[in-house]
């Protein structure tokens, strides 16, 4: 059989160099007014985004695989997303 594990288990097998600061900033009001939170939660393959009980968007930037899918979806102004500083973030060993 094949046990691919949960997404957090998979990410734990990946290698990352943790950046000091987050490369993702959320404008909670813009996300809320566009109703974009659930979309961001389900499209991110790394489960970077989750929703707090109060509906706000929680970001775990350290899990990010840097694909940019969230940025392609995010309503204008709701997300500031750039690549993390040089040398940090996901470090693929296979690719």
């Amino acid at each position, binding site marked *: 059989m094949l046990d691919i594990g949960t997404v957090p288990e998979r990410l734990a097998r*990946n290698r990352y160099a943790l950046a000091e600061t987050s490369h993702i900033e959320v404008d909670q009001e813009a996300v809320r007014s566009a109703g974009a939170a659930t979309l961001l939660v389900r499209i991110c*393959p790394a489960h970077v985004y989750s929703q707090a009980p109060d509906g706000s968007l929680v970001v775990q930037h350290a899990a990010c695989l840097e694909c940019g899918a969230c940025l392609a979806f995010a309503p204008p102004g709701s997300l500031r997303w750039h690549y993390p500083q040089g040398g940090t973030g996901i470090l*693929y060993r296979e690719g």
Partner: protein
Amino acid sequence: MTTPDTAAVDFDVIVVGAGIGGCVTAYQLARAGHDVLVVERGPQPGAKNLSGGILYCRVMEQIWPDFVRQAPVERVITRNRLCFLNAGSHVTVDYHDERLASPVNAVSVLRARLDPWLAGQCEKAGATVMPGVLVDSLLTEDNRIAGIRAGGDELRARVVVAADGVNSFLCRNAGIREREPARNLALGVKSVISLPRQVIEERFGLTGDEGVAYAVVGDCTDGLGGGGFLYTNRESVSAGIVVRLDELARSAASSSDLHDRFLSHPAITPLLRDGEPVEYGCHLIAEGGKAMVHDLTRPGLVVVGDAAGLSLNTGFTVRGMDLAAGSGIAAATTIHAALSAGDTSPLALAGYPAELDRCFAGLDMKTFARAPRFLENPRLYGAYGQLAADVLHGIYDLDTTPRRRLLATGLRALRHSPVTMRQVAADVVAAVRSL
């Protein structure tokens, strides 16, 4: 008075991004004697790069004649399987051909191994490779791109090459490319599953360095536009899904669930049995075809590879890396001519799109310009796979009722399918015109 060609510059050429497009450009320009800097945000080349398809490598042999033997490639793809996947059935075309091995036409690669080799070749040719540096923006002076800004430093060059991938923040932040509509982008989600070499060869019927690549449509993406892929590496299998962003947005699906669904599909999971997942990754893919290839130059700037929108899905082959290499050759040709003539004016660099259009990369983008719209047809991702299985079921399921001939069996399957004869006819015409 100083013109850009006599002004103080740090390098002749600065290439941003040490992927295939960037390295092919840099290698050729360095070999031609130009002073080249390659800036890469990963701490080593390849650390940020992920492929979900095989490398059609004949173009690489144009640059490195012994590429297949010298570069760290995984397996020689001699077997292509095109698979229509349904919930409880699948129909696969299995094409094996020894001619695909001599000369080698395609290889599987792991980018974290290939890209350091490519960057090493650039260094051997005399280029400076600077990893671990994120370029913040392009430097604009006198209405031309004059260099880059990175970590508070400014570096100047006669020509800057944007090889910074599908998200190309360089082009976006400089206003050269706008935000891409979701229908032109797809999301790939992939696992690399480690398996012993011998198991891979026995399981897939491979000899030595031979490899197989699967292109899968249908149930793997739950009927959404996109597909699954699977290919063998030396001691692992790469498997995952690609789904169009607009389709993903419209659905209620989660991208990781689609990946899991494909890997646990009864047609796929036996191929991965007892494997150990070693890496999970994702990547955006330019799926807009020729319509996405635009704004390839600005004064002082040339754009190559994914950053230029160069990738091509024909349904059978999914290409990007070979097109990146092709654009790298076209870019290097144009830039070399400009630098040699001492003229990097906008006019001199404006020859690059024409150079690209003359080579296989530009020509193939043109030939398959209609492919992206054809592949938006929802029947490809459900009804046709089921129809194919129903026809074959009618042939093979001998339930002691009298048999019909093939045509009658086919027509009967079509009558029971949601697809109409008129749609089949229209789709065949569209396929002939697009693919």
